[in-house]
Each structure stands twice: as C-alpha cells, then as structure tokens.
C-alpha cells in the first residue's frame, strides 16, 4: 500500500493505492464526496478499500483538485475538472494494475461526479452509486450558501468556493445519471436515503438497488467527531464489486 501523487507536476493529485491480496480480481476507483462529507466518510472509505484489496482488488482512493491533499484551493473546486480528475485517476489505476476493466465506487457527490466522467463511456465500467446526490438543488439548500461577493466567491459547506461550483452542484439531477442506463450499476441506499435514489435510472436493466438500515458514513457522529463505518454496507459493496 502506498501514498503517492500523480498527474501534471503543477496540478498533482493525491492518491492512495491499496495493493490486492492475490489472486488479483479487479481494479476499483473510489470517488469521495466533498466538504464535511468527505472528512466524515474518509474512515469508511479506507475500510472499504482494505476490504476490496483483501478480495483481490487494486484500489485507488484519490482527492479531487482543490480538496484533501491534492493541489489547489477550495476555490479551484469544479465539477468539470473533477470529472477530468476521475479520468486521470482511472488511467493511473489501469497503469498500476495492468487491468483494463475498472469499477468505480462513488459516494454522494462522488457518484454524480463519476456518472459524468469520460471513463463511463467504456461499456465495461461498473459503478456503485452510494447514497448519490440526485437533487443538487436540495443539497445546496441544505448546506446553505451565502451571496457571492464581487469576486464571485461564496461560503458554502464550510468552504470558500466559486458561485459556478455551487451552480454546478445545484444542476445535479436524475439526468446526471442517464449515461449509465446500459451499465452494470449497484445503487446502495442507507437509512434515511431510501427516497433519494428513487428517481434515477428507472429503466436500467442492469441496475441492482439495495436499501440497508445502516448508518450513513458521511454524517458526523458527534461521539467520535467523524462518520461511522457501516460494516454491512461495506461488505455488500465489496461482494458486489469483487
């Protein structure tokens, strides 16, 4: 297992490669959420990655531009750029694993980012949409954003971001996921999120929908100051992917 940077030298992305326990089965990219959800769910995504690696998967976790340990400030956050980051990470994962077929696990906003990435054009790409953000407007309203100043920046989700970024998120809707209609997809919904995924991919023949009474890892549990690890959800994803 190792932490590393990849991408252009002036726009490096942070990645963490979990090496598989042989025999090697798959290659999996993890797309996190953003803001507080990114922080709180980090632990659960580490556990998921270890579980997948234990089942023979090369796993790459990474941070989008302007988030985590990757280059850039919060004001560099941009959904279009993040989709390019996903594609770059897929290339990196393919090179590191030697496997062409890649599965992508997208949590919350990460699911919407992954659904629009170029890598999804590959018919062999499989996706896990974990509590996806389907109503961007509602999510933006829930986080609350102030009025942008003259510089076009606004405090949103405890970060300073561009108004453009907020608008991009607000624009996320069921249609964001339409490119996945013919893909093999696991839609996993935890407690309280059962309704959020109801509007997406209504006629997708290869969609498997699973609802679980599990804590949402991207919600802060105030007793531990971070998110819980929903072990049953993690096991379900690992079994579906590998």
């Amino acid at each position, binding site marked *: *297992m*190792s932490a590393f*940077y990849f991408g252009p030298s002036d726009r490096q992305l*942070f990645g963490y490669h979990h090496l598989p326990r042989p025999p090697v089965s798959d290659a999996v990219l993890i797309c996190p959420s953003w803001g507080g959800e990114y922080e709180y769910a*980090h632990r659960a995504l*580490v556990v998921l990655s270890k579980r997948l690696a234990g089942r023979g998967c090369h796993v790459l976790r990474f941070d989008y531009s302007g988030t985590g*340990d990757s280059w850039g400030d919060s004001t560099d956050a941009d959904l279009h750029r993040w989709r390019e980051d996903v594609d770059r990470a897929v290339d990196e994962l393919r090179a590191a694993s030697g496997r062409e077929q890649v599965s992508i696990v997208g949590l919350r906003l990460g699911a919407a980012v992954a659904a629009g990435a170029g890598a999804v054009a590959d018919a062999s790409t499989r996706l896990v949409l974990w509590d996806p953000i389907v109503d961007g407007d509602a999510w933006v309203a829930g986080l609350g954003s102030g009025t942008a100043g003259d510089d076009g920046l606004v405090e949103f989700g*405890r970060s300073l971001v561009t108004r453009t970024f907020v608008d991009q998120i607000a624009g996320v809707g069921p249609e964001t996921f339409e490119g996945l209609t013919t893909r093999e997809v696991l839609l996993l919904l935890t407690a309280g999120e059962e309704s959020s995924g109801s509007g997406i991919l209504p006629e997708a023949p290869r969609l498997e929908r699973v609802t679980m009474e599990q804590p949402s890892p991207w919600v802060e549990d105030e007793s531990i100051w*971070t998110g819980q690890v929903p072990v049953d959800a993690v096991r379900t994803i690992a079994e579906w992917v590998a």
Partner: protein
Amino acid sequence: MKETALNFGQGGSLVGILTRPDEVQQGDLAVIFLNAGILHRVGPNRIHVRLARHLADRGVTSLRMDLPGVGDSGMLGTGLSLAEEGRQGIHAAMDLLQRQEVASRFVVFGLCSGADAAFQIACLEPRVVGIALVDPTRLFATWQSWARKILRGALRPAAWLRLFTGRHHVLRRLQRKLGMGPEEQGSEAGPAAGPPAAGDGRGATALSGEDIQELAREALRGLVGRDVRILHVVTGDQSHLYNYRDQFLDAFPDIGLERVARLEFFPRASHTFFRESQRIELENAMSGWMASERFPRPTSSSDGSLGG
C-alpha cells in the same frame, strides 16, 4: 512549494505529506501536524493543508502525518497502547526528516486531542522546540475565569430562573459539597480525554483536578526550562471553560511561562474553524508566531522528560 507523499515507519505503514518551500527561511526546522481526533491528516475543514501551504509560502517546511491507526496510517504492530504507538509514530517522523536532512528541530501542531499529543511529545522529545496547541482538551480555570463566567451567567434571565427553582448547577454543586446531593458525575475541567502526560488512561486511577493541574504545572516547568516555545490558541467554542486571553498564564503563575508562551483567544472562532475568516485568523497567528519566535537549539543534555 513542493509536496511529497511519504510512506515511512515500520513496514512503511505511516503516511505523511511533506511540504517544502521553494526557499527555506527556517533551516533545520519543520512543523509536524498531528491528527485532530480521528480525522485524517488533512484536518477539519482542511486547515492542516492550508496551514502547511501558508507556512511554505513563508519559507517553513512541514509534515502533516497520520498517527498509527488513524487516516491512511496502519498500526506499527508493536502491541503497545494506541497512545504509545502514536508517540513512536511521531519519533519515526522526526527520525525520517532528520535522516533526510530536512530538519532536526520540530514544532508540533495539534488541535483538540492533537494538542494533547503535541504537549505530551514535547515533554518527552528534546528535538521538539515549539508546540502550537489549539483548543487542547484540558483547559484550566482561574478565579478570573470563574468570575467572568458567573458574571456572564448573571446577565442571563434563564440562569436566574434556574437559581430560584433550585436547578442551577452552582446550587447542585454546593449541595454535593454539603453532602446534601448526589455524587458528581464527570468533571467540568475539560470536555474530554485525560490529563496531559497521563498516558492513555489504561489502568490509570482517576486523578483529581488539582492532581492534573499539578502534573501539567510540572510538565510546563520542564518545557520552560528547555525554552520550548508555546503557541496556545483557544476558540470561542471553549468559552464555557476558557474566557479570556491570559487565562493559561494565570492558571500557571510563577513558572516563567510568560517567557515562552504566546496566547491567542479567538472568541468568534469555532473549534473546527468552519468559516474562512476564522481559518485566515489561525493561519496568520501561526505564521506570525513562527516568524517572530527564536526557537531554541536543543543540547544533548536536554531531557525534559516527565518521568513516572
């Protein structure tokens, strides 16, 4: 500025990000950021990343690391307690940076439980020449802080209502002192965690508030003796425990703390600095302190350990 991912420690199980400035202003000195609770090394609201880059722009090298068992770091496999593995992890980080001739003196930054860990490692490790403690979990009351708290409470109608209906916490405490009420559950001395330098609490007997303050006093006396520089930052989220800037100095008089400590009190800031203006305030406090301090050069005879 150049950032490098490091895998180090036993079997490469520890992870950190080394941030090196284009032009080093403080040769042989590096800041090490410790985890806040079990949040990974990025820090709440990315403050460790921002601080590291802010400091790099001012010529300061830093490492933000995950302690063993936190974030991306695995355990070291020593079989020792989590707290002891944490200390070994910090030693490993310092050894690595020293071996690579990046730094031989260290300033350790911590928020919340990270501040406790920073304090503890400073007491044990002579290469630590400075600590930046943000909202440590143990804050010590003074007469002035009690007076301010009471005064503030007196201005609230709800407090008077509780007083007249016998539900005020001061009345309940008085009743307990007089043996007229139930035993006290917990303590108001701090929001969580154990005393500084009291280990991880496994098998430890409970210490009184006075015992803890005395332990802290002795530890601080050791740091003052080594000329270790201290930045002590408290946010408004702790105002029920800490309510004026110099409270830390007043809680530990007569040990020369004022010679080494700089105090900051940010009454409008939250514990995790969730507003941009709060993060900028912290960044400026940290870089201003780093630029103005003359961090000591440890001698081989420096020890400063707490013992016991």
